[in-house]
C-alpha cells in the first residue's frame, strides 16, 4: 500500500518537476548536491545577494545577532503593512484622524496591521541602532568596508526620518506635538533656520495641512525609495568588500606571542642534542 502511494507521489513529483513550466522557472534540481546548492544561489535573483558559501565563524548567530537581517526583514514587514494602511488612510487633516479610528475599529485586521506597523517601526529603530553598535565593536567598519559604514550611517538617518514622518500621520496629540517640537528644532539651524523649517513643515510656523502631505509623501514613497536604493548598495558592497567581516582577528600582542613561540620551536636545540 505504502509503496504504491510512494510510487504515485514520486510519479506526480517527477511529472511536475520535469514539466516545461517547472523547468522554465527552476534551472536546476533540488539543492541537495554541492552543484545544485551553488546553482540555486547563483540562479535566484533574491538568493544571489548571498554568496554560495560563507565562513562558518562569520555566520554564527552570536556574532551578528541577525541584527542587519532583522532590520531588513522589518523594512519588508513595514512595507507590506504600510501598503495595507494606505488603502484606508487619506492624508487630509479633517479626515486623517478618523481614518485611523476606522482602521482601528471598522476594518478587518485593521487594528492588528496598524499595531504591527507601529511596533515594527519602533523595533526597526532599535535593531538598526544595535546593528551599528555591533559593527563598531567588531571593528567591521575598517578598510575595505569604510564606505559601506558611511552608507550605513545614511541608512540609520533614513530609518529615523521614516519613523519621524510616520509619527505625524495619525494626526493625534502625540504625533502633532512631537513633530511640532521636532520641526521647531530645525528653526534653530544656523543662518538657514527659517528656510529649513519652511521646507520641512511646508509653512513658516507650526504644523498643518502642508506638513501632513509632505510627511505623508516622504513617508510612503520618498524615504522608502532612498532606503531601498541604499540597502541595495549596502548589501551589494558587503559582497564586494569581501563578505561579512567575521570575528576580529588576534591582537598584535597575540600575533607576536604566537610568532615568538613558533621561532622558539623552530630553533635547533643547542649543544647536547647530539646524543
Amino acid at each position, binding site marked *: 500500500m505504502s509503496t504504491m502511494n510512494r510510487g504515485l507521489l514520486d510519479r506526480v513529483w517527477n511529472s511536475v518537476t520535469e514539466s516545461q513550466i517547472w523547468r522554465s522557472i527552476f534551472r536546476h534540481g533540488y*539543492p541537495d548536491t554541492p552543484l545544485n546548492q551553488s546553482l540555486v544561489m547563483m540562479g535566484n535573483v533574491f538568493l544571489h545577494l*548571498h554568496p554560495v*558559501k560563507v565562513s562558518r565563524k562569520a555566520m554564527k548567530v552570536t556574532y551578528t545577532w541577525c541584527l542587519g537581517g532583522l532590520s531588513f526583514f522589518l523594512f519588508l514587514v513595514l512595507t507590506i503593512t504600510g501598503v495595507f494602511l494606505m488603502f484606508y488612510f487619506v492624508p487630509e487633516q479633517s479626515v486623517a484622524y478618523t481614518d485611523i479610528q476606522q482602521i482601528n475599529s471598522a476594518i478587518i485586521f485593521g487594528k492588528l496591521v496598524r499595531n504591527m506597523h507601529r511596533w515594527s517601526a519602533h523595533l526597526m529603530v532599535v535593531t538598526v541602532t544595535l546593528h551599528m553598535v555591533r559593527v563598531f565593536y567588531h571593528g567591521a567598519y*575598517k578598510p575595505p568596508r569604510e564606505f559601506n559604514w558611511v552608507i550605513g550611517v545614511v541608512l540609520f538617518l533614513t530609518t529615523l526620518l521614516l519613523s519621524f514622518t510616520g509619527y505625524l500621520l495619525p494626526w493625534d496629540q502625540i504625533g502633532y506635538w512631537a513633530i511640532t517640537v521636532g520641526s521647531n528644532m530645525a528653526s534653530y539651524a544656523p543662518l538657514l533656520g527659517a528656510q529649513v523649517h519652511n521646507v520641512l513643515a511646508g509653512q513658516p510656523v507650526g504644523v498643518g495641512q502642508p506638513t501632513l502631505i509632505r510627511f505623508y509623501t516622504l513617508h510612503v514613497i520618498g524615504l522608502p525609495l532612498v532606503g531601498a536604493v541604499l540597502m541595495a548598495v549596502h548589501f551589494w558592497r558587503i559582497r564586494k568588500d569581501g563578505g561579512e567581516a567575521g570575528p576580529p582577528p588576534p591582537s598584535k600582542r597575540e600575533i607576536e606571542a604566537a610568532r615568538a613561540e613558533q621561532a622558539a620551536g623552530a630553533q635547533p636545540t643547542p649543544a647536547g642534542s647530539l646524543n
Partner: protein
Amino acid sequence: MATTEPRPTRTENGTAGATQKRYRTLAVVKQEAVTRVEKQLEDSVFVWPHLLVREFLAAMLMTMVLTVTSLAIDAPLRDHSNPNLTPNPAKAPWYFLGLQEILHYFPPTVAGVLIPGFVLVGLALLPYIDRNPSRAFEDRKLSITVFTIFAVFFAIATLAGSFFRGSGWQWIWPWQGVFFDL
C-alpha cells in the same frame, strides 16, 4: 590581469581569418588571488541550507514576536490634534528624547542642530578618523572607550528624557508618574 581580445587580423576581402581565435574576458582575477596559494581555505559552509535556515528561523521568530505583541498591546492613539492645547510636557519621539534632554542644558542651536549634526558627520567619518588597522579589542582601547562613553551618555540622556521628565521638563521619578508615548 584581464585577457584582452586580440585585434582580429583581417584578410583582404574584410572577413576575419578562419583560423583566428577570438577571446573574451570572462573574469578579472586579481594578482593576490592567483599568488596567495598558501592562504588557508576558510572553514566555510554552503549558504543553502546553513545560512538560509538561520535567516528563515530569525524571520519566523520575529514574525511571531510582532504578531503576539500586536495582539496584546495596541498602538497608542490620543485625542484629535489640537493646536491650541499644548500637552505638558510636549515630547519628541523617543529616539530624539536624548536630544530634547540635552536641550534642557544647552541653547537650541547647540542641542538641536550642532550636536546631532556633529554626531552624524562624526559617525560617517569614523572609518577615516580611526586609522588603526587592527580589529582586535585589545588594540582598540582608545576608540572603544570614546565610542562607549558617547553611547552610554546618549543612552542615559534618552532614558532621562523618556522616563524622568514631567510637566515643565521637571525631574520626576517614574513612580511619581510617567510621561512617555511610543
